[in-house]
């Protein structure tokens, strides 16, 4: 039996969740206070995921960068690779908040979306 201690990052409460594991299987989860926390804890011990928030270069906009994020969390191990991929991306103003900037980034099935309106300068 293996006990994993996790601090939940879903909301600012920061619940401490204990997950009991045996042979790669989850035996029990304790200490969470909402269903999202339970979900997070289960993921965290099997395949931890994170939402990446960053920016891509922009041309002709009111800012030189467009802030973006992954629409859903992506596997944590992919973070570095996705960052390198996004460094190469350049968008042209105007862009609307929520617009898809990169579809299905690196085959994760997750889109990269704009998190702000970018106006033409």
């Amino acid at each position, binding site marked *: 039996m293996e006990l994993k201690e996790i601090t939940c990052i879903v909301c600012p409460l*920061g619940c401490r969740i204990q997950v009991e594991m045996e042979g790669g299987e989850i035996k029990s989860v304790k200490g969470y206070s909402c269903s999202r926390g339970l979900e997070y804890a289960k993921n965290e011990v099997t395949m931890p995921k994170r939402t990446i*928030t*960053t920016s891509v270069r922009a041309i002709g906009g009111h800012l030189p960068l467009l802030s973006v994020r992954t629409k859903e969390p992506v596997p944590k191990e992919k973070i570095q690779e996705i960052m390198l991929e996004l460094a190469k991306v350049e968008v042209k103003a105007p862009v609307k908040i929520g617009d898809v900037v990169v579809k299905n980034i690196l085959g994760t099935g997750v889109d990269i979306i704009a998190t702000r309106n970018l106006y033409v300068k």
Partner: protein
Amino acid sequence: MLKYDIIIIGGGPAGLGAAVEAYEKGVKNIVIIERDKYLGGILEQCIHNGFGLQEFKEELTGPEYAQRFIDKVEEYDINVMLETMVLEITPDRIVKAVNSKEGVFTIKAGAIILAMGCRERPRGAIMIPGTRPAGILTAGTAQRYVNMEGYLPGKEIVILGSGDVGLIMARRLTLEGAKVKAVVELMPYSSGLTRNIVQCLEDFNIPLLLSHTVIEIHGKDRVEGVTIAKVDENREPIMETAQYISCDTLILSVGLIPENELSQKAGIELDPITGGPIVNEMLETSVPGIFACGNVLQVHDLVDNVTAEARLAANSAIRFIREGEFGKSNIAVKAGNGIRYVVPQKINVDNIEKRIKFRMRPVNVYNNAMLVVKSGDKYLLRQKRQRLTPGEMIDVNLSKDILKNANLEEGIVFLVEEG
């Protein structure tokens, strides 16, 4: 002189929240004065997520959260003055401001809502000896450069202070390919949210050195390194533990200070602990008709709480312009053992609708402690709290009934009972 029902100073989350609320409650002759080129305030540079869980039941980034309100401001066609700096507020609610189009002008308000936010504590205020090279900046300035201006302030970074902005920047700079060598925190605990320690530091194996501080800055033209040392229980550095870390940048995340120079000029009384105005249950300052919300009142951890506070300020302002001055708030609210401050600092029970929310911070970390509200010897409330830490604001709701039925002559005290 042009007159508005409500003048809102600051177009960040607090100002936006107050404007939208006021409009939706039927007061439309309002104006937001913002010194930057855009609305949104600090949220515009907070491109990370974690905003809106309470307000919108989803997790948004800063610009997305702001845009929800900006869209409404545009939809309602609320007056906005951008790139406009307020120079002065008077106790009779005249606002003097300047911009490049209209020059210096004055406008009169039925009520004023202060929503100017806060600023970061700079190096001088924490007295780090050493040289004065380039490469020392606050976390917020670093964030503005990286996310808004499009520049990285350095490649090898040490962060002093573990406030949330510092933690967020540790991750942000790491993601952008810089090396964050350490986050150094003077206190034995972090002043940031636990989730930020996990997802900003632990995820990237960035060491968090608690009870440590920077004791010297090195480098003539650009930072070349810092000397750090452990501190004892009096926060004095233990010189034998000194160690040198080479770096080209020192980022400071050593606290936020409500921005109240304007409030002071208007004769508004400030709380020496929060740095914000002393307010009553209506979030009214010591000057009638001037209200405060958001980080100008007290530094918040969560923007959702700022929005909630802004709503209360807007509703109070509306009540003020419709009904005039409120009765006196005579009941003192005090921070007792284990509590650093409580906002509001005074109340009038008659003005409370159903319940009132008090916000406060503990002085230390407490596990499984009782949060207690007392009046004289009488307990008004006892709540068990799993964990209290200065990095996380505490909310306590008290119902009007409890307050009405109690003898509050000696005021209300919030305190922590251990064990």
